[in-house]
């Protein structure tokens, strides 16, 4: 076990509930001080993985190392990790101070010292003077902060958070996202954060593991996931994506090239092109990577003419659907409304539109087996 394997190292972990496999051969490393998110739809196994880190579920096979130590024989109350539960699990029979100080019993601190630590925590979570409040008198956002303080006061090596913002309304959630990120930077503790909200994961995380059906599809930075998704599933889970069928046709140029459905023979970045000539691939382009113009843009390396089939004005941006020859589905295009707009553009005349894009924006994925 060397440090380069990561502060938390998950190795070939499987988890069965009876005959149902909730986690399938998950391996990944999480670095010290990282804000790491597990992102995936409900039921994909995020909570199960988190509970295995906390020690509430055993692994069926594989091993989890925390700070270099294997954990399978370590019960939850001896692990150097703490958890913020989805329900917060604030003890209803204790006041705020006793909730926060709950884990300090074993340290046998003098009362003054303990109260001082609790006050410090209340400062940190911006609830000073709340020590005597009853747990039952708190709002959702306050309970969430108390749950954080109760875990952080023990200075854990890792903090686990299971959809901690899920129960809050939108405005409070956005505020708490910022605070959570700031707090994590301040305390420097490794956070493993579970969410099903892609925007939340992109906003908060240093790195994200995208999960589906008990498997980890890709682990990457937010920008990495968005700009260079490795599979169609990841590409369509995070943001929107246009997919085109294509065939690799290099022609000796500095860039690779792909014969693409509807777009013709287009240049693509070399680093994206690992397949041999003739191999089927998928070409993926995000809606906002396209530029729209009523005439053929001058100087564009490549442009395609299509017809506007639908448009929607969304305030900050507009969404367009452009049909092109040789492709059944219209292409989704999203543009920022920089100048003053007067509603959605007129599409009644079946207006011709030119699409152009930068070749570097293209992502090449393996061909879709399912068709």
């Amino acid at each position, binding site marked *: 076990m060397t440090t380069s394997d990561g502060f938390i190292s998950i190795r070939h972990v499987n988890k069965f509930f009876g005959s149902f496999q909730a986690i399938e051969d998950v391996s990944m490393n999480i670095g010290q001080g990282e804000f790491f998110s597990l992102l995936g739809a409900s039921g994909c196994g995020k909570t199960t993985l988190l509970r295995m880190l906390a020690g509430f579920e055993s692994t069926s096979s594989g091993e989890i190392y925390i700070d270099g130590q294997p954990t399978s024989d370590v019960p939850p109350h001896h692990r150097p990790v703490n*958890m913020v539960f989805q329900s917060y699990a604030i*003890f209803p*029979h204790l006041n705020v101070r006793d909730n926060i100080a*709950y884990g300090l*019993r074993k340290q046998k601190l003098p009362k003054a010292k303990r109260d001082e630590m609790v006050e410090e925590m209340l400062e940190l979570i911006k609830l000073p003077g709340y020590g005597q409040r009853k747990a039952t008198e708190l709002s959702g956002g306050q309970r969430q902060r108390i749950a954080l303080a109760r*875990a952080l006061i*023990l200075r854990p090596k890792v903090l686990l958070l299971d959809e901690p913002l899920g129960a809050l309304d939108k405005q409070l959630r956005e505020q708490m996202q910022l605070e959570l990120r700031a707090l994590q930077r301040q305390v420097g503790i490794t956070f493993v954060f579970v969410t099903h909200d892609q925007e939340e994961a992109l906003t908060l995380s240093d790195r994200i593991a995208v999960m589906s059906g008990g498997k980890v599809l890709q682990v990457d930075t937010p920008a990495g996931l968005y700009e260079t998704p490795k599979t169609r599933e990841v590409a369509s889970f995070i943001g929107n994506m246009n997919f085109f069928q294509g065939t690799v046709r290099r022609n000796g140029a500095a860039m690779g090239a792909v014969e693409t459905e509807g777009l013709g023979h287009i240049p693509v970045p070399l680093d994206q092109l690992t397949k041999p000539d003739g191999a089927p691939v998928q070409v993926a382009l995000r809606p906002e990577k396209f530029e729209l113009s009523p005439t053929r843009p001058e100087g564009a390396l490549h442009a395609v003419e299509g017809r506007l089939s639908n448009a929607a004005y969304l305030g900050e941006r507009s969404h367009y659907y452009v049909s092109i020859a040789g492709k059944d589905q219209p292409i989704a295009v999203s543009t920022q409304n920089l100048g003053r707009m007067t509603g959605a553009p007129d599409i009644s005349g079946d207006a011709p539109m030119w699409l152009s894009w930068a070749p570097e924006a293209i992502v090449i994925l393996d061909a879709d087996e399912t068709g």
Partner: protein
Amino acid sequence: MSDQGTYIKRPNRPLQIYAMVFLFVLYLPILFIPMFSFNDSIYVRFPLQGFTFQWYGELWNRQPVWNALWNSVKVGAVVAVISTILGVVAARAITRYRMPGKSALVTFIMMPLVIPGIIFGVALLVLMSRMGVPLSLYTVTLGHLIVCLPFAVATLLPRFEGFDPSMEEASADLGENGWWTFWRVTFPMVMPGVVASLLLTFTISFDEFIMAFFLTGTDPTLPMYIWGQLRFPQEFPSVLALSSLILFVSFILVFVAQWIGRLGLDKDT
């Protein structure tokens, strides 16, 4: 219009009348007992003769009553503590662990509620005499445990069922082992149920007659003492006075138990 409440909660006149009649018929015979206990006559018949505390006064000075009372309190206290402890263990096991045949187990625990006491009484009596165990307050206690355990479990189960399991996990997560978690989280949270169970089982044991009838040795419990006094007509008013006191105390205890048992349950989400 709008303050009529929901469809279900709307006041229902016929149902209210039914409830009144039901309660009246149920409690009318019982009301005669305190009424005649204050009657200045040794005969239980109308018209009432006048108001007196004489029968209560007589009770006060009677040593056997105090002995029987003390026996009942001892048995009741022991039964309450043991059946509540067993009830806590059972309710915890039933709600915490996934196990096959769970509902069958619950049915078995609740069974004594519907098995006639006389059958249990006779069965235990036979068992005791076979094993050569002399009848005493201990055998009465054993009989009462069987009667009280279902009530303890029934009182405690809702408490444990309404208990978010992540509370105990949070305690473990914050570094406490099973023992400390129980005393710092589980027990305080089910405390109202425990108190309710103690009060209820004490009352049931205190009032119980059939088991005591089969299993009492030479030391009578209070109901057994009353039974013994029924042979003497001149003692009847004192018996009524004693019964009134038992009724009163039982009513208070059960009422308090119900009230405590529900503390916090309604508010919780």
